[in-house]
């Protein structure tokens, strides 16, 4: 039995990945919210403005804005600076297309009483299991 905190959603795409969480509680605006050459958030009002999600596990409530949203992640992936995994509070069609494009592990559709944008903190080291639909917080950010 793991002693780590585990939350469970729907397994959307496998397999499994570990990494640091990059939590954007207000999502990121589509089309021009990211510099796809560096994976850096360029939306000035975003909590992660100026930060790069390259190699991290991104945690988002949903998509937002233009249907170019998924293209941001496709092109970040092609440039080698995309997230290594995706966690969505609720799956939507743009989030689905981002996974379709990148084929990175993904867990989505968490129960109403479990918001991953609250349960997971920026900088937590987590294990995303896209086969079984679990997210395990291995090392909380405060211990990093």
């Amino acid at each position, binding site marked *: 039995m793991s002693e780590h905190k585990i939350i469970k959603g*729907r397994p*959307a*795409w496998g397999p499994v990945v570990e990494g640091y969480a990059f939590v954007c509680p207000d*999502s990121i*605006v*589509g*089309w*021009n*919210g*990211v*510099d*796809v*050459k560096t994976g850096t958030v*360029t*939306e*000035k009002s975003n909590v992660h403005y100026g930060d790069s999600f390259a190699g991290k596990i991104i945690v988002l*409530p*949903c*998509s*937002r*804005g*233009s*249907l*170019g*949203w*998924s*293209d*941001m992640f*496709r*092109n970040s992936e092609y440039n080698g600076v995309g997230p290594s995994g995706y966690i*969505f*509070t*609720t*799956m*939507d*069609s*743009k989030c*689905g*297309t*981002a*996974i*379709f*494009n990148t084929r990175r592990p*993904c867990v989505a*559709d968490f129960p109403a009483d479990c918001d991953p944008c609250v349960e997971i903190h920026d900088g937590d080291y987590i294990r995303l299991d896209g086969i079984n639909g679990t997210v395990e917080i291995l090392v909380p950010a405060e211990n990093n």
Partner: protein
Amino acid sequence: MVRLTAYEQRMLDGEFGAAKKVALQKIIDYAQILGAEELVPITKAHLCCGSTCEPADFPDGNLDRPDILAMGYHDWQTKLKCPGLDPAVFNSFNESTYVMDDVHCCDTFQWQWTQQTKEFYENNRQILSDAADRGVMIGSTCAPYLAGWLPVMGEYFVTTESSNVLYSNSILGARGYGGGGNTTFCAAICGRAPKWGLHLPENRHGTHVFHVACDTKDKTDWDLLGAAVGRRLSPNAIPVICGDFERPDLIKLKTFFTALAVTSGCELCLIVGVSPEAQTYEMAMGGHKPVAEFTITNEILQTYWDEVCCKQSGPADYLQIGCPNCSAEELIRIWRYMNGRKVKEGVRFCVFTNIAQYAMAEQSHIIQDLKSWGVEILTSGCILRTINVAKGAKSIGLSSFKLCSGSKDERDCPIYYGSDEQVIDAAISGYWEVKRRYE
């Protein structure tokens, strides 16, 4: 596990060609990602076909990546959007799907005013011609419903335009979701999409109720209302708009949906008395209780005006109307308001529309008149899409919350926000007089 019909299984077995086989397999993957168990036939598709490139590709005004565009439509679009599909076997989109193209980075008729090169323009024309060879109707617009792309109530559609998702679901009663370029491309090739989300009647009821207690007379009111509603929505929420509002027309609705889309992930909005699935409040809610209720006042609208509009009056040298692309009716309104007045020398003022509206306005001498008054009429894009169109601008005046919000992120010069009439006044005077919209 996705259940296929006998026809879909034959497609997956390759009976209808390699392109459909590959595209269908990818749509089945998409269904798994979304959690869908069946597919639906897609009879209307709207997708980007021309030169769509990210702003990051143009940090210094370079017009395109030669390595990508040199590949042409066959290699570039196909390999980018449907990896694994041999471009040589992709000769046609699905025959029973009406496909129209979305906006791209070029004007339809010229490259000079938008500060692009002839080579870039001609390359884009070739890409569009290649798409047309595969059965795409070249409309090049974010508002295809203005050009006859009209899914009817209950019809399944796909689109790459977020405001079009909202318009088609909310006003036409059609059933669809956006997704993005790759999934829409594959759906248009095989004519299938996952049966999921807003395809299902049980998902098409209101969740968040908005009581309108603000001005709703002007297009700008609806633009700001869209932002106010969008910012208050949780994932996959469906807002219900009710209260004492003035009945919106097509111009106000498409403006409202554009701001709503950019501030949320919303794809269906039920406007009581306007949406076919919301002729009454009870009908909109479908027996469900609201998850949350909000009242939108002028004070709230003012906060969104404050968010995007520069507070200091000053010179304005780039002005634009047309987000989404202007309807022919809007072109007439602009023509009437200008009434022979000319754009100030040194000021660049453009109006974005689509090819169909342009053709009608040209037959009505509106295009000729506006051009003679110094207005450039452009097709397809906008300040965010049409690469270089606002290059060198010292300040920018727009009538779209979406464009102001996006431009603020891309540029450091002052951005002004106001009504179409304010944009026109600034184009004529060369000066933007900042006035608080609501008192």
